[in-house]
């Protein structure tokens, strides 16, 4: 029974499930650093997924799908930024509005463009390529876990590093962090905090767009209504759990992925599905509690 649950496909599954969360999480943590809580990620992912399919289908090229998804991300990022930064609207409301907007728009366009409702799949949608590393072929464990994944799974890991370096090792990253923590300090040294906030919200749009394109072209090869299915919110939880740090957020996303995958497998050994689905959520709360307790202890001892 143990072997049925804990095997290599569990880890494979973990990696796949975590990737959309990682990609969206990287975007969201940038806005978080810039002082904006973005709960519109859910909608941004959905738009990315849709326009990914549009691009891939009409240009018969998955790369164009990603380009379109990124463009949609840029546009929605600008809209989000305009309302939140320029008009000073509540980021919560704008985030929710973007989610509703994305839901309606994709359903509407699905019908106007493809003439279908609900779902669109077609051999005409060109999926993103899988990457095969020949050198892994002979290494049993690593081959199963790490080889032959869709391209953005690998790119997401690179993005984690780039984001980390960007945030903590470049001046621009410092500016973003300063823009969130104390925008006036940044303004007074001649850097526009507003621009940094715009930048972060656009990059968030891009990352979420890619997350969506990965979902509809890499993970799957189709679009269905509401296919983001709450991933934007889980990504948000991963960001908060990871204390806005790209590496820790990556870890948190993997943790979600892992427990999600574990949940699927535990059904096989007789646990009611409702409880297996609860696992990632319960684990998160418990993990937060444990971390908080540890921190409290350290503080007391100091």
């Amino acid at each position: 029974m143990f072997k049925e649950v804990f095997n290599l496909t569990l880890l494979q599954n973990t990696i796949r499930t975590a990737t959309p969360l990682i990609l969206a999480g990287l975007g969201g943590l940038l806005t978080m650093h810039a002082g904006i809580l973005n709960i519109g990620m859910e909608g941004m992912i959905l738009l990315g997924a849709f326009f990914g399919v549009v691009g891939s289908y009409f240009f018969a090229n998955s790369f164009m799908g990603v380009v379109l998804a990124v463009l949609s991300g840029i546009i929605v990022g600008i809209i989000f930024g305009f309302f939140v930064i320029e008009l000073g609207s509540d980021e919560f409301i704008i985030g929710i509005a973007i989610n509703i907007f994305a839901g309606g728009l994709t359903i509407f366009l699905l019908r106007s463009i493809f003439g279908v409702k609900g779902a669109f799949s077609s051999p005409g949608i060109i999926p993103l390529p899988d990457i095969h590393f020949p050198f892994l072929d002979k290494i049993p464990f690593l081959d199963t876990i790490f080889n032959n994944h869709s391209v953005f799974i690998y790119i997401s890991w690179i993005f984690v590093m780039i984001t980390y370096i960007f945030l903590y090792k470049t001046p621009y990253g410092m500016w973003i962090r300063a823009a969130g923590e104390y925008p006036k300090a940044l303004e007074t040294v001649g850097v526009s905090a507003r621009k940094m906030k715009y930048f972060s919200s656009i990059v968030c749009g891009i990352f979420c767009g890619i997350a969506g394109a990965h979902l509809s072209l890499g993970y799957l090869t189709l679009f269905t209504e509401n296919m983001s299915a709450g991933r934007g919110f889980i990504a948000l939880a991963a960001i908060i759990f990871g204390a806005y740090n790209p590496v820790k957020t990556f870890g948190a996303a993997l943790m979600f992925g892992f427990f999600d995958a574990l949940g699927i497998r535990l059904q096989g050994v007789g646990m009611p599905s409702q409880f297996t689905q609860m696992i990632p959520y319960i684990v998160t709360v418990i993990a937060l509690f444990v971390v908080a307790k540890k921190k409290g202890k350290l503080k007391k001892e100091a």
Partner: protein
Amino acid sequence: MVQNLIELKDVTKVFPGVIANDRINLSIKEGEIHAIVGENGAGKSTLMKILYGLHQPTRGEIYFRGKEINITNPTVAIKNGIGMVHQHFMLVPSFTIAENIVLGSEPKKNKIFMDFKKAVKITKDLVKTYGLEVDPLLKVEEVSVGIQQRIEILKILYKGADILILDEPTAVLTPQETEELFAVIENLVKELNKTVIIITHKLQEVLSLSHRVSVMRQGKLIGTMNTKDATEQKLAEMMVGRQVLFDQLDKKDQIGDVLLKVKDLKAKNNRGLMALNGINFSIRAGEILGIAGVEGNGQSELMEVLSGLRELEDGEVFVKDTNIVGKSPKEIRKLGISHIPEDRLFNGLSKEATITENMMMGIQDQEPYAQKGIHINKKEIRNMVDQAIQEFDVRTPSQDVLIQNLSGGNMQKVVIAREFSFNTPIYIISQPTRGVDIGAIEFIHKQIIKKRNEGCAILLISAELDEIFRLSDRIMTIYEGEITGEFKNGMITKQEIGLYMTGKQKKRGDLHEKNKA
């Protein structure tokens, strides 16, 4: 000191409903220290923000080295060698000192990456050049305000500033830190030919430091003069527009029973280190006990313990005969301690609330302001607040104005008005006049003495030695969480007390023994 470096011609700044600067004509000479004084809200900060490009003048021209210049944003100012240290620090708390100093003009590796090593080196070089000691690797949130002030100055020097605008740099400094800062400023001007514009409310500082001084009042520039020709009295009159009397405070001597008694008090600070190591004192009715000390020696913790905001490790605190240890802030207030906190914006007020709402704190569940302790009686409260606004001279169009739209001095008056309206027998007062103009200082001092004369026991903590000496009946010095000396006011000079404040001498006079008995 020959050429006019900067000339303002008819500079006017209008905010909705307020003319913050009204046709200001002002010239700054190269290599001078130019002081600007004026009451709270006179328009000093606004004028300086215009020079630094943070505000655009509604009309008027600015000439820089004889040429008209349009300072559209701070970058333009920085390019022209203008740097500003703001009244409220512009530092990112979670960044290191080095990072803060280079922020906006970072040294780079390979054109993309931030060169942290170089930033540290730059900081170390700056420290060497200007003699302002800081540790580049510490985070700003870990250092004192004095250090933060230095970081701000280093920051603008790094950006190549020749003209340094300092907006109330000494408001939060200890006397020692102020002295150090002035030495640095003088050095900058003399040795490095920098020009300094400094705003301050402390007229002695003006007299001892500056070459020329300009006075502002209600948005207008009243006049500029050579400091040689100025006196404290004269400046004060120009600022306020009438004669200011630095009255002798009228103290009645009728010391009564012990109201507050502290025994072997021990407490930790936020970092878990011992901040108070066995404090003993007592205060009688009609007495002001002043505590002198360099900031960070346990004063804040003492205040917090006495008002119930901090747990103590050991010891006892008696209000008359009641031990208040373990009691909540609310219970302690009920037992008769009111508290004016050191940082009004941190916990003394809510910026987003109106004056009325701020004045309600503490009485919101008490008759007659709240019927049955629940239903708020607006009328009662409004009357009370109106009265307090009048009595304490809070300058505001209405009690519905948000606190954040008041000047700092008026915010302070709101806090004092609230606490003094409680009529409790014991007052704990910390930094009552920080950032407040001289008129208001005078007023606040009179109010404190009035409370004393009414028979209250008052504990006064202040970084201003002048304030301590002016108000206290008895003075204690605190150093590293211990009382190092205790004196009757008049028995010790300001010079001597410095030794006790820095722990170089210790003495507990027989005065203390008498009180204990």
